[in-house]
């Protein structure tokens, strides 16, 4: 696990970016212009959101002919979900120990 987890959650915190992700997972690789046609957002705004998704590692792009197509790269999303699972399990263990510790102190 690396410092990328916080970038993933920051990227996912925006509702438009979540819409972009939904579009990409439903429709496969698309261009920024195609996304702008499908979502109620300007092409400039879409380009900005795609850039931050790409920076977080959630999206990758490649040139096909003269158009740049964006696709989902789900690895970091899985990593982020794994992070949440691990942290939750750590706290389950810790709070269990805390309960036993506090109960033991009362005796």
């Amino acid at each position, binding site marked *: 696990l690396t*410092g990328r987890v*916080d*970038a993933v959650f920051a990227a996912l915190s925006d509702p438009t970016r979540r819409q972009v992700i939904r579009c990409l997972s439903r429709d496969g690789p698309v261009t920024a212009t195609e996304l702008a046609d499908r979502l109620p957002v300007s092409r400039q705004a879409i380009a900005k959101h795609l850039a931050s998704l790409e920076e977080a590692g959630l999206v990758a792009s490649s040139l096909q002919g003269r158009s740049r197509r964006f696709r989902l790269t789900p690895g970091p999303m899985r990593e982020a979900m794994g992070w949440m699972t691990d*942290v939750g399990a750590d706290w389950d263990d810790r709070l*269990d120990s805390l*309960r*036993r*510790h506090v109960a033991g102190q*009362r005796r």
Partner: protein
Amino acid sequence: MGKSATPRLRMTGAVTRSVELPADADAVWLALTERDQLRRWFGADLVLDPRPGGDVRATWPSGDRSVGSVEAAIAPRHLVFRWRRIEGAGFAARVRSATRVEFVLEPTEVGTTVRVTEQPIELASLGGSG
């Protein structure tokens, strides 16, 4: 303080757990802040100075370290710190995600409920020194 946490769709990565303890809030506060007590349940040698800006340092059984600072400490109700974990040492050290850890203590009829929330933060917002 960070930006207000609007709970929409829970995409912040926040992990929340809670436990009810058979002790009053003052006793629980000590269990959360005294090094000797922390050592018995936390799973790391955690030293924290419970006042805003106070140092937070931990050594994990693996040898990893965590460093950070206290954001808020209102005994015996509310404790928040930010920290990051450093894996390995020296040249090979790797900084893992920084997180914010918040404890909220709530008195109940039989004791105290502790709710803990841990969530990732950007390294830049960590503050303090390493």
